[in-house]
């Protein structure tokens, strides 16, 4: 099993380096960027940029310097806000996005697995069709549609829940979390149902029943481990999607998280911010994919050997 972990880490490192490198050089190419000599910038920004990037140094040295700074967590100054650094902005927004993400995942896992289990235990019945229809809705109504609709219904028409802010009004965390988590709950539900159905038809389930085990034990002890594997492998890519989803959700609900900063930076053309956040996000995603792969290997004993 350690071989697998090592293998994955060995892939992750060059990937991260590729990301950093490509992003770095992309930014340099951007018209109107910090490296576009034709652009006229406010003097404080130019001063910061020069100090940080040492623009008179050859490009390659700028690159290695940047890498060195990265290892200290220093992403450089913001391109648009002369008195703030990128790191500062990342770490202001991060805890909020993190909290939002955790709630969304909890919703996704709890509701998703529950719905999927219900459906799998009596396939092709109402107990199956109803949760799965909701799940299909979750998949086909993207967050940028679901969010506004929820806002319309609960915020405007029925005036039950606040529609913007985070931690400013009681209950303002509910709608954003549900919006973000809903699509994932849908995927988890479908994966759980699929995984469980596959497992329940396996021969070893028949053996478990032949031993006289009560059905609950058959499902919990024998079926669940195999059945939930697809959900675990899904978690890695899910995080990537969750991050992307946070852009939309934070924009719609005015949540001051990292996602909203990222989108604003994209529109403001805050290049250094874009650079830094991209790298940060990429590192997070790579880490979570790695984590999910490791978890999957650990859960399936057959994979441990290879």
């Amino acid at each position: 099993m350690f071989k697998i972990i090592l293998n994955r880490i060995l892939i992750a490192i060059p990937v991260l380096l590729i990301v950093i490198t490509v992003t770095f050089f992309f930014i340099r190419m951007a018209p109107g960027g910090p490296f576009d000599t034709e652009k006229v910038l406010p003097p404080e920004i130019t001063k910061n940029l020069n100090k940080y990037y040492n623009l008179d140094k050859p490009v390659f040295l700028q690159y290695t310097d940047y890498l060195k700074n990265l290892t200290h967590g220093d992403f450089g100054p913001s391109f648009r806000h002369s008195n703030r650094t990128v790191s500062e902005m990342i770490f202001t927004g991060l805890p909020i996005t993190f909290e939002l993400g955790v709630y969304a995942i909890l919703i996704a896992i709890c509701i998703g697995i529950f719905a999927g289990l219900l459906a799998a235990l009596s396939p092709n019945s109402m107990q199956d069709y109803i949760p799965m229809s909701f799940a299909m809705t979750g998949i086909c109504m993207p967050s940028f549609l679901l969010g506004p609709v929820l806002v319309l219904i609960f915020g405007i028409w029925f005036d039950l829940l606040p529609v913007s802010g985070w931690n400013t009004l009681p209950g303002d965390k509910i709608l954003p979390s549900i919006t973000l988590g809903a699509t994932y709950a849908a995927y988890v539900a479908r994966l759980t149902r699929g995984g469980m159905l596959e497992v329940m038809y396996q021969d070893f389930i028949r053996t478990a029943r032949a031993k006289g085990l009560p059905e609950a034990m058959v499902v919990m002890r024998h079926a669940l481990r195999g059945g939930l594997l697809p959900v675990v492998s899904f978690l890695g890519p899910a995080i990537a999607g969750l991050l992307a989803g946070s852009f939309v959700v934070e924009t719609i609900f005015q949540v001051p998280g990292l996602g909203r900063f990222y989108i604003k930076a994209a529109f403001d053309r805050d290049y250094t911010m874009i650079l830094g956040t991209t790298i940060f996000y990429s590192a997070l995603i790579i880490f979570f994919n790695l984590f999910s792969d490791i978890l999957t290997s650990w859960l399936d004993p057959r994979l441990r050997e290879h």
Partner: protein
Amino acid sequence: MALLEVKNLKTNFYTRYGVSRAVDDVSFAVEKGETVGIVGESGSGKSVSCYSLMGLVPSPPGKIESGSALFNGIDLLSCSKKELRKIRGNTISMVFQDPMSSLNPYLTIGVQLTEHLVLHKGISKEEARKKAISALLEVGIQDPEIRINYHPHQLSGGMRQRVMIAMALITEPLLLIADEPTTALDVTIQAQIIDLINDLKKRKEMSVIFITHDLGVVAGIADHVLVMYSGRIMESGKTRDVYYDPLHPYTRALLKSTPSVEMKDKELYVIPGHPPENYEEVKGCVFASRCEFASDKCRSTIPELQELSDGHYSSCLRVQDGSIAEKLSEGGSV
């Protein structure tokens, strides 16, 4: 009184192609301490009959239409689910065909050996573990204290089947149902497993139902044989009788088509036609369409099992009325 007495068992499968008569009026008995072999091609209903007894027939699309199965005073087919569960894995155990897919790959064999033991006998986990270790020894697995923590994929095919047998016998059942336990194994291991089952059966005074399509295997292990075809019993009796004096064209055909060393240059005998799909209502004998002795009466009357000599039953109309008795023993046997 027989340990298990099955009467008129009928199980159907309701599928999109129609209703399949998987088990069509089957009756048999298993005495204490004896081994009954059930022989037949695929689709003969041999496995489904036993699954029906254990309540393991998936319920849609399967349905047990009628019949009774008295085991130890309880009718398995009409008792409550709870009662049936207390019997499964406890007084009746099953061993399945493919040990790789029949064992849970995610759990250690230790867990799989002890969970039903703890459940049925109420002993502690530590005691159960000790019993599991000695069970593994009994089935011939070395270093059981180490192996008990293995996962199934870490064992070889033969060992896995031994584990399945240990798992079935650990609760000291009165009846062991073995569904083609040797089909997925190679020949040398097959012999070992058969010997193991025989040995354990004698020691524990257990009865065994041994399901297989392999006549050679049954000859070595069964006291009584049931020959099934398309959901019905063609012939049943003591093994010696059925083999040396087959009283049904199907049995004779099966015996003839088993290749043996003496055949040398002769061609392999093949029963013409192929097994029916069980979907149609067959008006007469199910084997009539492939039987070289079939008459019009065979095609229009459903035969009943009749005892023709001591304990030897046949459902062939023409054997029952005596018209082909000599022809049958001509063909020679294994």
